[in-house]
């Protein structure tokens, strides 16, 4: 990876939350991770493993107690100010008083883009997420899945080269969820953005990712990193869910998640960083 500036470079990051009494909680302990440009990396692990904390640190919504985080070679704070990433949360978080188009235009408007340029970009993105008939609708008129698609379109508004997603499909039912995953794969292939994706779901992580980062809780650490190796984003489709390689990666991640610390890591196909 020498010569190319990584999309995200996390080095020896620890985040400790102080408590009024007692020693406090170590949410992340000495975590290092590198995400290459255009790479899709999922963070998976039980609750309390610090995966959301890690994402918030990359987004500069929180600062590490120690260690360094760089996004495209800049400190996380500068990357945030320069709008180098787009972000989507578990809750779609649309402003209820803005239409679909208005919500997607929000970041452009806040950063001073002209009206015509805003309109054009919003129309493009609305088409990209397949909501062209709903541009004038308000969020309360949309289903949960549609709201989440709007949120994803909004995160793409400024064509970021990095997308941060914190369980964006976590509140959706299984059927909607799979459809959204298929769409995300298509969108990522089109935009070529790197993605850091936090999830609870093993199939979701495996289906979407180039690499799956398996984390363990208390303190939050990276247990190991599984290279899925299911090929390019553009080649991924519904058939992949029936693929043998998909199932192999699935059981690999599952074993890593359920096995305790003593279980052998560094097994076949698992790369340890």
């Amino acid at each position: 990876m020498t010569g190319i500036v990584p999309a995200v470079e996390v080095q020896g990051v620890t985040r400790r939350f102080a408590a009024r009494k007692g020693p406090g909680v170590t949410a992340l302990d000495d975590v290092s991770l590198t995400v290459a440009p255009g790479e899709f990396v999922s963070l998976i692990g039980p609750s309390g493993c610090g995966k959301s904390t890690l994402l918030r640190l990359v987004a500069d919504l929180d600062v590490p107690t120690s260690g360094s985080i760089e996004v495209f070679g800049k400190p996380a704070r500068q990357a945030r100010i320069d709008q180098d990433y787009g972000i989507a949360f578990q809750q779609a978080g649309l402003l209820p008083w803005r239409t679909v188009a208005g919500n997607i235009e929000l970041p452009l408007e806040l950063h001073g883009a002209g009206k015509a340029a805003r309109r054009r970009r919003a129309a493009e993105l609305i088409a990209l997420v397949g909501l062209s008939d709903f541009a004038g609708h308000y969020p309360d008129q949309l289903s949960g899945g549609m709201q989440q698609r709007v949120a994803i379109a909004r995160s793409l508004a400024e064509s970021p080269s990095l997308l941060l997603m914190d369980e964006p499909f976590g509140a959706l039912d299984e059927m909607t969820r799979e459809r959204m995953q298929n769409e995300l794969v298509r969108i990522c292939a089109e935009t070529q953005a790197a993605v850091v994706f936090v999830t609870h779901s093993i199939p979701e992580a495996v289906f979407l990712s180039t690499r799956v980062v398996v984390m363990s809780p208390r303190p939050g650490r990276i247990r190991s990193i599984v290279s899925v190796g299911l090929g390019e984003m553009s080649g991924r489709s519904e058939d992949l869910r029936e693929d043998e390689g998909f199932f192999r990666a699935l059981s690999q991640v599952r074993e890593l998640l359920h096995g305790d610390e003593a279980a052998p890591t560094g097994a076949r196909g698992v790369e340890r960083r």
Partner: protein
Amino acid sequence: MPTQTEQIARPRRSVRGAAELRVRRAGMPQRLSGGLFGLAGLAVLALVWELYKSFGPADGVILGGVTVLPRTTDLAMPHLFVMAERLFEPVTGAASASPLWLAVLQGSLFTLGIAAVGWLVGVTVGLALALLMQRFRLAESAILPWIILSQTVPLIAIAPLVRRWGAQIQFGEFTWESWMSVALIASYLAFFPVSIGALRGLGSPDANHVDLMHCYAVGWWKTLWRLRLPASVSYLLPALRLAAVSAVVGSVVAEVSIGLRGGIGRLIVEYAGAAGGDPGKPWAPIFGSILVGLVAAGFVGLISLFLRRFRRGEAA
């Protein structure tokens, strides 16, 4: 959220249909039926009044030496038609006297004007305080207790103070007039609900939305304008309505305490003296003050029509 997933599975047109239906249901018919129920409530009140007057004991209902229900004599409880008729007779026996309704209407307009000034001042101060408290945590802990304490001081106590202090204000062409004291006292009542409501409203956006604004690297003012103010509308509107009604009550009471002529407050005191020989007359300014309150509340209702877009979240 099963309905939401159903919606996405169904053809698109039905989603739009459902949305339209929801909008329509919340629209005109509902407001109409609300108005009808309001009128029905008024009719029931009138009926109870007249029934009690016809069948209640002349000396009222007395339990253990305490009068629980009023006397039903024509003096204590005039018929509703007596009150109505009185409105169209002249104020006094003098030949030049105008009809009572006109005098009351003029008084109502006078009070409405003062209440409007008081409301504007109160809303401005209330909003400013809420913004200050939202911006600085320290300001909130320093100011909020005083805001709440301020409402425990009775109006009667501050009216003479305001009047006395006001009388000493004079610079250049400007002199402090009595109606300004009344407006100031009205604003003293009006600012309270606005500051509390606006503070809650400004703090109402989800952590999610605040995080998003942080990610967008926008400052406090932009966050205020794009997120906090729009989000506070559904808290602000009830507060504005409450402030309008408080401003009216404050104006009427302050007119009495300060002794300002020309408004409803003064008429209430004046006509109460006539109750002995003219039982219908004291009711006229009471109706007048109700009218002023309704107009004030209606005005805020008009504002909320323009801000409907920002209240969408409530329907969801």
